[in-house]
């Protein structure tokens, strides 16, 4: 077909089509005499053809079926909104009691017992419910997780998209996908029996000896982060904020890593070539050509990881220590929003208690919705120009 424009009047014999009996002249002659075309018996138009024709004509235009099917599918799609509305309304209604009793103070009040002058945030027996230690625990463990996970995830994403031999790329991506699919409770199990002893016996003592050493106290004492009252002061239980942060880091690594990879692959190749053409080394190419263009999306994937860390429940509940206190030390026992719900929900004895737990759930819902929406928006900003896998 290509090039046929120039050959139009050329006789067929020159076009290498093996049809010795046909030429334009012959066919055009036949046009004048259509009755010459013979048809073999089995190719004649069937008598019962009209049966098919009649049947098909009897079928309606199926407009009603098509419209109802489309409406049904639209309802399925709209159910996504329904779920959000359902969750929000159930949580708002069920947390009314606590909301009316404590108001906004529920989330920030540093409650102190008038008799003992000790902080008491959460005392189901006395009917005292303030959520600050849970907010604090969720935030701190998630930040610890980010500090650990972000460099590793971005580093591995750089390796996988820019440096890795093709042969390794598939298996390594598969491994990160697997990490994402391991259930929270299995991470928790592993953390309880492997990670916590490891921290208690080997890692925490090292951290403590570094942060609590005399040199550290002398030089950095003014920051308040070192010494007995610093980040690694107090009793070494193994359990606690640090353990929760580390297991959370492991859990959000694959999320950040795979999204960062997606964002980095969305950077057009021309950006890389432009940097290389200027004589950049590979790292300079990655830094200028890739990371600079992908940075919004990478931030988005980090925020998405944060969103996952904020809501992660089981693994955290198993290692954070479950003590509703606020302490600067990462080695101290703490509590988180999701963990307190998981631990106490089924034993919440009165309505106020239950309502307070549901209010924490509502806060978790609102925060994760905002964080996830922000993250998706940022990722979308980078990848929108790239067509999805559509043929």
């Amino acid at each position: 077909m290509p090039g046929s424009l120039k050959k139009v009047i050329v006789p067929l014999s020159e076009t290498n089509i093996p049809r010795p009996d046909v030429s334009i002249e012959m066919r055009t002659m036949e046009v004048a005499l259509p009755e010459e075309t013979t048809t073999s018996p089995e190719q004649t138009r069937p008598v019962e053809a009209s049966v098919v024709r009649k049947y098909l004509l009897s079928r309606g235009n199926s407009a009603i079926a098509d419209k109802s099917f489309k409406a049904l599918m639209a309802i399925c799609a709209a159910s996504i909104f329904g779920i959000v509305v359902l969750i929000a309304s159930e949580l708002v209604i069920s947390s009314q009691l606590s909301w009316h009793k404590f108001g906004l103070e529920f989330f920030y009040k540093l409650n102190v017992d008038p008799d003992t002058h000790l902080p008491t945030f959460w005392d189901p027996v006395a009917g005292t419910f303030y959520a600050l230690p849970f907010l604090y625990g969720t935030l701190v463990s998630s930040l610890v997780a980010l500090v650990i996970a972000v460099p590793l995830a971005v580093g591995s994403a750089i390796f996988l998209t820019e440096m890795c031999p093709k042969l390794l790329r598939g298996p390594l991506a598969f491994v990160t996908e697997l990490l994402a699919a391991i259930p929270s409770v299995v991470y928790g199990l592993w953390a309880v029996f492997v990670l916590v002893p490891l921290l208690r016996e080997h890692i925490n003592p090292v951290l403590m000896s570094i942060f609590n050493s005399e040199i550290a106290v002398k030089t950095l004492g003014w920051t308040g982060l070192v010494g007995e009252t610093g980040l690694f002061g107090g009793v070494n239980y193994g359990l606690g904020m640090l353990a929760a942060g580390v297991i959370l880091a492991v859990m959000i690594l694959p999320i950040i890593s795979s999204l960062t990879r997606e964002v980095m692959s969305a950077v057009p190749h021309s950006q890389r070539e432009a940097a290389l053409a200027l004589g950049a080394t590979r790292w300079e190419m990655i830094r200028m050509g890739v990371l600079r263009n992908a940075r919004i999306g990478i931030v988005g994937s980090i925020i998405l990881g944060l969103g996952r860390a904020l809501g992660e429940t089981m693994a955290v509940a198993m290692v954070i220590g479950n003590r509703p206190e606020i302490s600067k030390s990462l080695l101290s026992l703490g509590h988180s929003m999701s963990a307190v719900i998981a631990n106490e929900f089924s034993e919440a004895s009165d309505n106020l208690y239950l309502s307070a737990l549901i209010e924490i759930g509502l806060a978790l819902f609102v925060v994760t919705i905002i964080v996830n929406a922000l993250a998706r928006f940022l990722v979308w900003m980078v990848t929108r120009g790239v067509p999805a896998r559509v043929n």
Partner: protein
Amino acid sequence: MGVGIEVTNLNAWYGTNHTLQDIQLHIPANHATALIGPSGCGKSTFVRCLNRMHETNPIARVTGSVRIGDIDIYQDASPVEIRRRVGMVFQRPNPFPTMSIYDNVASGLKLNGYSNKKHLDEIVERSLRNSALWDEVKDDLKKKSGASLSGGQQQRMCIARALAVDPEVLLMDEPASALDPVSTSKIEDLIFELKSQYTIVIVTHNMQQAARVAEKTGFFLNGRMVEFDSTHKIFTNPSDKRTEDYITGRFG
């Protein structure tokens, strides 16, 4: 038997792009009519307007009238009903990948709820014979997937699939453009055989093909139909200068 097609004042748009302008045309019944013209001239859009496939694209729009036989397809019937009367063969073979050869050919009937098994067997055999594929596939009709055939066989299977619903008109949108010369020649022979029974409209990029198979030829350029006449006249003595330029290769 096939029926004629009467096109009056047909205009079509993709978004703001006016792809067909004021087409007037009479396509005779039980003949092959070829539509030629350079890429993007609107010939594909035109055939897609004849079975209302054009409007499957949400930004597309059509005005004017198309009468196939005694019905105005934009007034008197729904797209679904029109497409059952007007079969279509596409540029690239598009078998249903999950179906056997048999199911592919029978799909037009089966998916419309027709379930007389014995009759289906007959129709499948006849359609495959009509599309000159029967001898090549009769032994593994239900065993082989339609997608496992060669490109040329797939296209003939697609023709059989279109024939199985016993259409009055057969539209072919560059049916051989993705095929090798041998398969192309088989498809052309087939069109030649079929045109005594069906009204065939074939869009082609290839002028020899138009000359070989069609009695009538229309030349499209920039969304307008420049000339429509007997194939012999178009290729030997065109009345429009632009047609002459195109068929002699003095063109873009």
